[in-house]
């Protein structure tokens, strides 16, 4: 019954948007709740939870297949990647993932999927059509962040205890360079043009900007917030608008996100969100940014143009990852 309802809901919201000629398109926002073993499904126009899906143990990383048909979740404590139909939310299959999958990213062509195995110092390459592990690439201690260049040629993985960004050639599955960054790198994000990789360092408190071609450091963003102790500023999630103008960095227990001019690397604004903000998701039109606030059990919605928070929405316990579908 719930499946039927789910099928109807997106259609309804789409219709209502068209009728109201609302400027914002309706998207579906998926949030993993690490503690609850659920995914909260939000409507980007109503800005409320419209459904909750039970999944495997300790869901963290979440993404969509490149054709948006599948919703994939790293259920870390079940040591697998669960695949759901993104529209009906019906379970499709489980992918072999290697132990303790945390974050993952698709090749731009849609296959394979690259998974960071936090507990096993590996990046696992999985063919998602044939459910086969193609390769295991040994990386540093506690691999986490995963970024891929828009042309699909370079995969970047960060390892939290080794403190490096590993540059991996996707053709050979070999590491061709390692860039030392500040302590506990969590997320690697390519700029839309592929020329840079931004790496957040949670304990180091910085974001390092690396030139893809040379692996040279182009800049390092430091954060300073009045009334917040520097140790509490812990950058994790990084997202950029497709026009390459704005970058957003989640600052963990500083309870804020930083809005950064992606050209000058200058922080232009800090926006107060919920507690221990970790991951970020942009709507496909780059108008709204969703933040997962782990210890306040909510998601904050930020109006990108106005650069301010518009609403916080209660989800499950310890929201971790977020992805927005274009429907």
């Amino acid at each position, binding site marked *: 019954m719930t499946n039927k309802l789910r099928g109807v809901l997106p259609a309804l919201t789409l219709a209502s948007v068209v009728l109201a000629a609302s400027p914002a398109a309706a998207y579906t926002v998926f949030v993993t709740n690490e503690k609850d073993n659920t995914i909260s499904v939000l409507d980007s126009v109503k800005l409320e939870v419209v459904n909750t899906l039970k999944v495997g143990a300790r869901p963290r990383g979440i993404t969509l297949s490149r054709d948006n048909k599948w919703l994939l979740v790293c259920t870390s404590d079940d040591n697998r990647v669960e695949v759901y139909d993104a529209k009906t939310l019906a379970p499709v299959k489980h992918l072999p993932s*290697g132990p303790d999958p945390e974050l993952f990213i698709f090749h731009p062509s849609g296959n394979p999927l690259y998974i960071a195995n936090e507990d096993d110092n590996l990046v696992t390459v999985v063919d998602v059509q044939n459910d086969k592990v193609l390769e295991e690439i040994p990386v*540093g201690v506690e691999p986490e962040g995963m970024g891929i260049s828009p042309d699909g040629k370079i995969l970047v993985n960060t390892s*939290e205890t080794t403190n490096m960004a590993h540059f991996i050639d996707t053709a050979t599955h070999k590491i061709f360079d390692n860039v030392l960054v500040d302590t506990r790198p969590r997320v690697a994000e390519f700029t839309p043009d592929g020329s840079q990789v931004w790496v957040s360092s949670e304990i180091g408190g910085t974001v390092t900007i690396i030139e893809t071609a040379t692996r040279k450091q182009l800049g390092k963003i430091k954060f300073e917030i009045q009334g917040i102790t520097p140790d509490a500023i812990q950058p994790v999630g990084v997202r950029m608008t497709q026009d390459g103008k704005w970058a957003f960095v989640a600052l963990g227990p500083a309870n804020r996100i930083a809005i950064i001019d992606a050209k000058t690397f200058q922080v232009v604004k800090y926006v107060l969100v919920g507690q221990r903000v970790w991951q970020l998701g942009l709507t496909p039109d780059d108008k709204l940014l969703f933040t997962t606030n782990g210890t306040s059990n909510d998601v904050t919605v930020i109006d990108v143009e106005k650069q301010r928070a518009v609403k916080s929405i209660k989800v499950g316990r310890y929201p971790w990852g977020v992805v927005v579908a274009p429907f």
Partner: protein
Amino acid sequence: MAIAASARSAIRATLACAVVASAAAVVTAPSTTLAQEAQPPAVAPAATTREPGTQQITILLVRELVDRLPPLSLLDQPPKDDGIAGARLAIDDNNTTGRFLKQSFSLDTLEASDPAQLIADTVARVDKGAGFVVADVAPDTLVKLADALAGKQAVIFNTSAADERLREEDCRANVKHTAPSYSMLADALGQYLAVKRWRNWLMITGSNADDKLWADALRRAAKRFGHKIVEEREFKYEVGSRRSDGGYEQIQQQIPSFLQGAAAHDIVIVADAARLFADYFPYRTWEARPVAGSAGLFATAWHPAVELWGGTQFQNRFKRLANRNMRPLDYNVWTAVRSVGEAATRRRSADAKDLISYMLTPEFEIAAFKGRKLTYRDWNGQLRQPLLVATDKLHATVSPQPEFLHQFSELDTLGVDKPETRCRAYAK
């Protein structure tokens, strides 16, 4: 790596090789087909097949075998590899990172019950180039070892002694402390009890010298955080045989009668540094009051149930390696060995002089599953770190508590702060 000075060092050499080999095994374990190409030359047992240009870094773990009375609970009996397993994990972690930088780490362990022998062996190793000494030794031995190594190219990490004097009047410029001091532990607990407003303490102290030191730190914490010690009693306890059939019948009578007639209190604080008797107190008090200090609620650098801040993977890695839970000593040793690894990574160097001086700069920091960067205090070499305030099963909180502020670092609200220190060695 192998020094054939004595039978003991022959064993040591075997141990060290085993450690390197296991590090390689961990790296290449996931797939046999991958193993060949995945195993970088730097991770192979470095003593035999070292790739040209690989930097070799040996860490010396120095253990004084001390006859100690066994702790009361069977659950607290120290395993034979207490601390060693922490060192092995850190060596593995250092090597996983090191293979990207052509750095190879190995562990060499010295053990002796005679402090003079241990110090002589260590000096001999340092004279041959070992620059990093991770020590699990008695306080007096630590001071003597530091003096014996004074002027040499070596740094010592104190991983087990909580004694304040080692950071204060007896501090040495060539010693760092990853073990929290008694005052840090007492302040971590004292802050939380202040937040709870459990202000009136009935304090019970054991008869051993260490108990008195621990009690001093608790008294200091009480004063700092506005508590009142309403009464103190000394618990004179002959340990005897730890184990005997029966025994609870007598204890059930003794503890409440010992606590009878005490001034009104919110909590019973027990200072029993070696946990020889403190665990007799919870649920046996005269008044219905909680127990803290050395039993009940206690402060600690590490707890086997902690999964905060990525701790899950850390605990899992340790359990796979050692087949047991990680203990505070393992954590303190891990942090020491990782400090060397982190310095080597950042400096891309294996030179002891270079790494030791880098570890003294304000830039040096390490991530050690405490949710924030850890640094060493520049006035006495003590590692700043949040401490867990826990029961046997789970942490109740983590100190410093947000209510206590500091002009430089909240972590300096734990323990003796810069303006109060009596350490002069670092000022020179």
